[in-house]
């Protein structure tokens, strides 16, 4: 660890890894600090990622792909199963990753590109000068070091504190935190090539329950419920335990994973003087699916690209760094977040009877290609009344 870098990245998740790698590739000196002793562990993820999304960043490698998905099943509150087979989904389904290895690979790629890495090293406060971020204090192995940087990229995940210390409010509203628990379960009867989603207020209030296969007879079985619905006796773990008891009574849990996923709108502003915020720390998770791996990699890479330009011009003011904020909001990813936020807000307000109706009607239609966008278009086509209910959202899809 040196005392000065062009870019200091806080957090060694997908956002931080892509930020560090990209910065190094642009010829900048970069350091990634990760507070945990091991990259990627413990896992806080169901590990699902779309094929195209992955290919945009890295070629698939069997070392960190647990399973390939060719279909998906949605189970309505009344138990009705809507199957989306591979003929619908084509090749465009996805992977269930092994994130312990995947995250490590991403950080290894950053190291290979020339970035320095420090594990079990925690950023404990920002170095501030005249209101601008100039680096961070790092605690490691009982020692403290001040690391200065032109730009700090906060990629510190859902538990992000760094940007808050710099004056940015990152509080997730209670109703928009998905309080989550997941078991990696072995020896269970599943379709090893299809993900399954269970919806309904009895199963997972304002969220969903998932079974993501990781191979033959093994899967990530997890749940996310709205923080609003969580409380003593009815927490995410209570719901999951009930489901598991009923559906996989003989399954063996080989890993226990609590977690939180934000499904709020992204931060109002993701830059400040000398600071950029990426990934979960910026609250850029897809509010409908809770997926954040792609968005983390996307924003991490973009942040470093913009940092490189700004450092080159000698201007790392908030105004200059705003290019990052504008670009991700205008990107396909940014637009999908905005659109899916509306869809989520609509869906969580529906009673089970309405969810049943929607899933039944969608199962009767034939989509050429399964995407969220097509799904919504079809829902609206089958339920014209929804156009009124969805208002502006529907208009934006036409």
């Amino acid at each position, binding site marked *: 660890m040196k005392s000065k870098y062009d870019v200091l990245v806080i957090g060694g998740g997908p956002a931080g890894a892509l930020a560090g790698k990209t910065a190094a590739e642009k010829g900048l000196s970069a350091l990634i600090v990760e*507070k*945990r*002793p091991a990259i990627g562990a413990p896992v*806080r993820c169901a590990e699902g990622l779309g094929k195209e999304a992955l290919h945009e960043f890295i070629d698939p490698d069997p070392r960190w792909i647990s399973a390939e998905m060719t279909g998906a099943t949605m189970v309505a509150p009344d138990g009705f199963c809507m199957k989306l087979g591979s003929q619908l989904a084509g090749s465009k389904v996805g992977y269930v990753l092994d994130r312990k290895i995947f995250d490590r690979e991403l950080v290894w790629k950053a190291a290979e590109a020339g970035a320095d890495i420090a594990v*079990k090293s*925690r950023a404990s406060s920002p170095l501030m000068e005249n209101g601008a971020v100039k680096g961070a204090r790092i605690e490691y192995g009982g020692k403290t070091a001040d690391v200065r940087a032109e730009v700090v990229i906060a990629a510190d*995940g*859902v*538990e*992000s*504190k760094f940007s*808050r210390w710099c004056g940015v409010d*990152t*509080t*997730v*509203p*209670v109703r928009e*935190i998905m*309080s*989550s*628990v997941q078991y990696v379960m072995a020896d269970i009867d599943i379709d090893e090539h299809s993900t399954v989603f269970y919806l309904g207020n009895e199963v997972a209030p304002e969220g969903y329950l998932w079974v993501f296969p990781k191979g033959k007879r093994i899967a990530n079985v997890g749940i996310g419920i709205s*923080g609003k619905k*969580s*409380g*003593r006796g009815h*927490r*995410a*773990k209570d719901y999951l335990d009930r489901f598991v008891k009923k559906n996989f009574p003989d399954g063996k849990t080989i890993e*226990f*994973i*609590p*977690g*939180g996923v*934000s499904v709020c709108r992204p931060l109002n502003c993701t830059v400040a003087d000398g600071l950029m915020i990426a990934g979960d720390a910026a609250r850029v998770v897809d509010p409908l699916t809770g997926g954040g791996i792609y968005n983390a990699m996307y924003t991490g890479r973009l942040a470093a690209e913009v940092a490189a330009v700004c450092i080159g011009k000698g201007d790392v003011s908030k105004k200059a760094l705003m290019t990052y904020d504008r670009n991700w909001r205008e990107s396909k990813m940014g637009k999908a977040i905005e659109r899916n936020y509306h869809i989520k807000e609509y869906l969580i307000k529906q009673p089970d009877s309405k969810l049943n109706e929607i899933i039944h009607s969608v199962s009767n239609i034939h989509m050429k290609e399964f995407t969220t966008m097509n799904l919504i278009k079809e829902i609206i086509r089958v339920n014209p009344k929804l156009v009124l209910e969805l208002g502006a959202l529907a208009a934006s899809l036409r």
Partner: protein
Amino acid sequence: MLNVHRDICGYCGCCVSVCPEGALELIDAYLSVEKNCTNCGICAKICPLGALEVIDEKQV
């Protein structure tokens, strides 16, 4: 006072994201509670495992 049941906590950071005071911090595998905690109970409500509890100091 906010009590952390360390034997229940799975150090996931979910609670850290909702604390309006920024009073919680996840330091790798343990959760620290700062003095500015107002005992509002939000974190205790959303913890997926029920590892947090606001307890009445008078009763301790």
